[in-house]
């Protein structure tokens, strides 16, 4: 049994390394700034969706308040940079840590609820975070915070004219989130979390600490979401509550995983690779007149996938493999 699992895990890791290598060279022949931006956003959301997947997919705790951790990471790293000159390359990890800590604080009361009640509670907590930042002068209130440009620097994660460094930063972020999910999937924790997702009573009867499992999943998920928020802030150069803490953002973080396949390694990546181009292209082609159209497309895609492939797009790959094996 162990040999088969080790072989499967090794195959996944090799596939991950091949995809990573392909994505590392992908932008080199692309000179177009728009396309490079599209890839960067896709990678960022692949990482964010994977972060959400760690809690929502593997542990089955459907969070609709992840914008709180994302926003917290963005604000913490940015304010550390603006007010204390703390380099964002390090500050983003502080942002991630704050995201993880917030996820624990939210989880402490909310994990006592289950199913839909937990999801509703996270919506409420996310809205509270949004309103708090909107009315908090120290963090710029509704005006938000500009990230001052201090010259091209890896420490500051600032590159005025180049997109390539951001490509590698977001690729490293997405790869780290994927690798964390890979580690979790094969670990004792990963098994415990999936047990919690499928049947809490059965999990307990096998010795699984249900509450601790949820908290651990939330902390890791919150950390990576906060990390993504900090990277996003440096990339766009400006944050306000609407752009990083809005309720819609929580949905956007979860959607790629839902579309691609929750509780799978590649679901969030595949979901982001489909959704982000759809979103960006519909926005750029339709402009202001198509505002919200991307969300309509999202909705339509989710409905189609939910009806045709409830396990997500990534399950199509599994079906192709099965067919090839049968042939």
């Amino acid at each position, binding site marked *: 049994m162990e040999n088969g699992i080790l072989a499967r895990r090794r195959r996944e890791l090799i596939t991950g390394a091949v995809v990573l290598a392909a994505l590392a060279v992908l932008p080199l022949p692309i000179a177009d700034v728009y396309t490079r931006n599209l890839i960067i956003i896709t990678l960022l959301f692949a990482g964010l969706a994977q972060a959400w997947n760690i809690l929502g997919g593997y542990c089955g705790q459907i969070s609709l308040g992840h914008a709180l951790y994302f926003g917290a990471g963005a604000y913490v790293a940015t304010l550390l940079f603006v007010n204390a000159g703390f380099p964002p390359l390090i500050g983003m990890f502080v942002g991630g840590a704050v995201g993880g800590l917030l996820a624990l604080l939210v989880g402490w009361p909310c994990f006592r609820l289950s199913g839909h009640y937990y999801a509703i509670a996270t919506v409420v907590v996310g809205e509270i975070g949004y309103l708090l930042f909107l009315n908090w002068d120290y963090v710029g209130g509704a005006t938000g915070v500009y990230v001052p440009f201090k010259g091209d620097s890896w420490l500051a994660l600032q590159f005025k004219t180049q997109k390539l460094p951001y490509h590698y930063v977001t690729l490293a972020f997405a790869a780290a989130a994927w690798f964390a999910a890979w580690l979790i999937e094969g670990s004792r924790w990963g098994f*415990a979390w*999936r047990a919690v997702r499928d*049947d809490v009573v059965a999990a*307990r009867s*096998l010795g*699984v600490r249900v509450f601790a499992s949820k908290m651990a999943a939330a902390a890791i998920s919150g950390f990576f979401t906060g990390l993504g928020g900090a990277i996003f802030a440096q990339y766009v150069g400006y944050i306000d509550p609407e752009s990083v803490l809005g309720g819609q953002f929580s949905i956007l973080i979860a959607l790629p995983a839902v579309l691609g396949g929750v*509780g799978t390694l590649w679901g969030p990546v595949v979901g982001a690779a489909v959704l982000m181009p759809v979103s960006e292209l519909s926005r750029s082609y339709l402009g202001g007149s198509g505002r919200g159209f991307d969300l309509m497309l999202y909705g339509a895609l989710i409905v189609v996938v939910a009806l045709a492939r409830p396990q997500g797009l990534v399950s199509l790959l599994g079906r192709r493999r099965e067919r090839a094996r049968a042939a």
Partner: protein
Amino acid sequence: MLRIEGLSAAYRGLKALQGVSMEVRKGEIVAVVGANGAGKSTLLKSIAGQVATEGEIVFDGASLRRVAAHDIARRGVCLVPEGRRLFPRLSVEDNLRLGAYARRGEANRFKPLDFVFTLFPRLKERLGQRAETLSGGEQQMLAIGRALMTQPRLLMLDEPSQGIMPRLVDDILAAITRIRDTGVTVLLVEQRLAEALEISDRAYVLQTGRVVMSGAAADIAADSAVRQAYLGL
């Protein structure tokens, strides 16, 4: 090994167990029998820490009062619940691994696997299959196999023959005897009275949450008055 004194439990004010006292000795198969609603499943859930109770439950000399369900499992008490409660989306292999992962140490974690496959060779054939796609009998085999992977000292089985083809019931009951032979103590709740009493050393008869009779399983099986009065047979 397990001593229960004055155990009471209630669901929303409705008394399911009323002052139940019993004992299970090491290496025994003890059957708990009774009509529907007698409190048999509640008794197992109470021991597993899944139901709030009053009274004393002592396992291997230590009280299980105020011990969380997951800690009770880690002490070696494993419940195979009614309806199996497998992890449907996980494969047979992953369900078994989950049982093994309940143990903290790395060493010998998968030691019971060979025994599980000896007991239930079908599980080995269906290793990569999702649990939800198995037949009722295979699911029960997996539920018992998963519990064995936790290396329990007390295995509690709630209606293991429920929803299973008659042909497979004998296999399951034979497997329970073989499990006992490896030194695992078994507490069995079973509707199929004759079969349950046949493989058990002792039995307790529950009626409306109270123990109304206990003794050697063979004696209870032989007593037609008892069968008629308490078991509706």
